[in-house]
């Protein structure tokens, strides 16, 4: 295992071009995500939280600056290598769950393993094993739309864990859930942190920051405060 932060951002800028106008979503963000911590990123809408998460997760390339994943500069990796990184080392959880509705619950969880080339029998066993931690066995062959929002988000978490990643990046994972389910999801992330996973969660919900080890506050594309709990 490599030493030091698992993710490091060094003077990261992300500028979007809206028509002919440049819109800076991130303005020179530098920060580190420690291995095995639960980091919450908060801030108002448009402050750059999701952009920061996308850059951390190798979904987006910064306009300027560098993102390191275990000291590897991501700018040097091809899109295929970035896809491999996302597949093996990073798990994503989205606000709108982003489950494929034409697949069953268990098939959704198998998706990252399909991309990795794991044989059908092995990946099915692993998917069921992960799902059994979060959901009743009765739902695994249902379609996502047959489940409640809380259940769908737990499926999404199971999918994020499919290839046993080091980091889980969650973008407003409780945004579409009621308070009970929001806390349930936050508790799951805390438990995963306890198991050694690194969690980065973007949230509006201040209550949920209680579960985090550190809170990074973002304003107008800049980190304005980092609170260690």
């Amino acid at each position, binding site marked *: 295992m490599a030493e030091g932060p698992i993710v490091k951002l060094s003077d990261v800028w992300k500028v979007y071009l809206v028509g002919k106008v440049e819109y800076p979503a991130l303005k020179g963000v530098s920060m580190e995500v420690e291995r095995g911590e639960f980091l919450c990123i908060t801030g108002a809408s448009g402050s750059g939280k999701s952009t920061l998460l*996308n850059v951390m*997760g190798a*979904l*987006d390339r910064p306009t300027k600056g560098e993102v390191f994943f275990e000291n590897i500069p991501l700018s040097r990796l091809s*899109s*295929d290598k970035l*896809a*491999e990184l*996302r*597949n*093996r080392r990073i798990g*994503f959880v*989205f606000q709108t769950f*982003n489950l*494929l509705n*034409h*697949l069953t619950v268990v*098939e959704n969880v198998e*998706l*990252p393993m*399909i*991309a*990795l*080339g794991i*044989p*059908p029998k092995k990946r099915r066993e692993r998917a069921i094993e992960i799902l059994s931690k979060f959901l009743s066995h009765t739902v695994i062959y249902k379609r996502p739309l047959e489940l409640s929002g809380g259940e769908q988000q737990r499926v999404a978490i199971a*999918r994020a864990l499919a*290839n046993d990643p080091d980091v889980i990046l969650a973008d407003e994972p409780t945004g579409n859930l009621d308070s009970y389910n929001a806390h349930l999801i936050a508790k799951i992330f805390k438990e995963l942190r306890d198991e050694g996973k690194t969690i980065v969660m973007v949230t509006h919900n201040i209550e949920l920051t209680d579960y985090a080890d550190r809170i990074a506050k973002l304003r107008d594309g800049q980190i304005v405060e980092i609170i260690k709990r």
Partner: protein
Amino acid sequence: MRLYDIFLLAFRALWTHKIRTALLILSVTVGVAAIIALTSQTEGIGRNIISIFKSLGPDTVIVNVMSKRLTDLDISIIASLDGVRKAIPIIREVAAITLGDTQLNTVVYGIASYELNEILGDIKLIDGTIYQDTAVPLAIIGSQIAFQNTTSQPIVLPGQAIMVYTRGSFGAQAQSISLVIVVAGILDRYGAANLISPDTSIFIPLQAAQQIFNKMWYDMVVIKTNNVSSIDIVEESLRSIYGGAVNIISPTQIAQTMQNMITQTSLLLGGIAAISLIAAALGIFNMMLVTVTERTREIGTMKALGFKNKHILAQIIIEGLLIGVFGGIVGIVLGIATSYMLPGLIARGTAISTATPARSQQVRTFNPMTLTASISYEPYINPVIVFISLVLAILVSVISSLYPAWRAAKMDPVKALRYE
């Protein structure tokens, strides 16, 4: 990522939109079926006609009179030409016969009984016997005359007489003749027409024909040459003797010409049918673009989960491939089924078109000198065409999917995930 999984994901994606997928498959199916059905008809008709011409024998030359009467002297001259093995004189008269209240047009051939096998090949009689070579008007009649399109019982039997009306041919001496012919035998069905159509003809002894029609000349001569290579020599000799006074036909040459025509017709029809595949391609292209746009967020999610651009590209292309394969296979089945249904429909259509009421609703006439009235053929399913159709279907579907697949593969995952 395993190939099996790409196929699985592609199949599941298609299965989600069953109606849309079914319509895309149908568009390919129609194109493939059209190619197979149309080309099988032309090839079937062509092969049938060619086999008929060939059944006269590859060593045959037919001489039809134009402006010269062929006499016994001419027959002797022709028979003595280099390369000629035999010259068979035939008298031919277009006639009408009345059976019950149905009037039919037919052709009466006067031919020696021992030469019948040279014209008909195997003489297939379903009832009665072959006539004797006398001046008595005994006849063997074609199956369509005897059965009148009924499959069960003939309306005339050996030993029974039929009335034949004809006009003496050859210009100024033309006169109406009515005569009674006694049926000696009934021919089995020979199928499609040829220069002599047995199913719609009446054969009587040569001497009887000479007497009845008062003809001391012949209307056609069937020449059997020593071998196929003698045909050109015999034709040349005949032209040098008779010039344009006779019409010389070589069935072998006709067969070769027809073969070329049929090949060209097949290509033309196949090409026209293939245009429907282009329409299918545009449909697939359009629908794939729509599908890719609809699935933008799904594609973004897959990319976030670690699917590479080439995986996305492969999945969409394989969706096109599956449409092509399923459409092609169903098209082949449908095309073969249609191929076997069409001859019946064509025969029914042509029967209606050639039936001309003359006296009443029940009166039917047919012209035995045309091919269409008695045309029957087996469609020929060319395995090469079937294979080409399948390849075309797959190719067209895959090519139509390339651009949508490329667009999907090149999507920015962040933008795709934000897509509403």
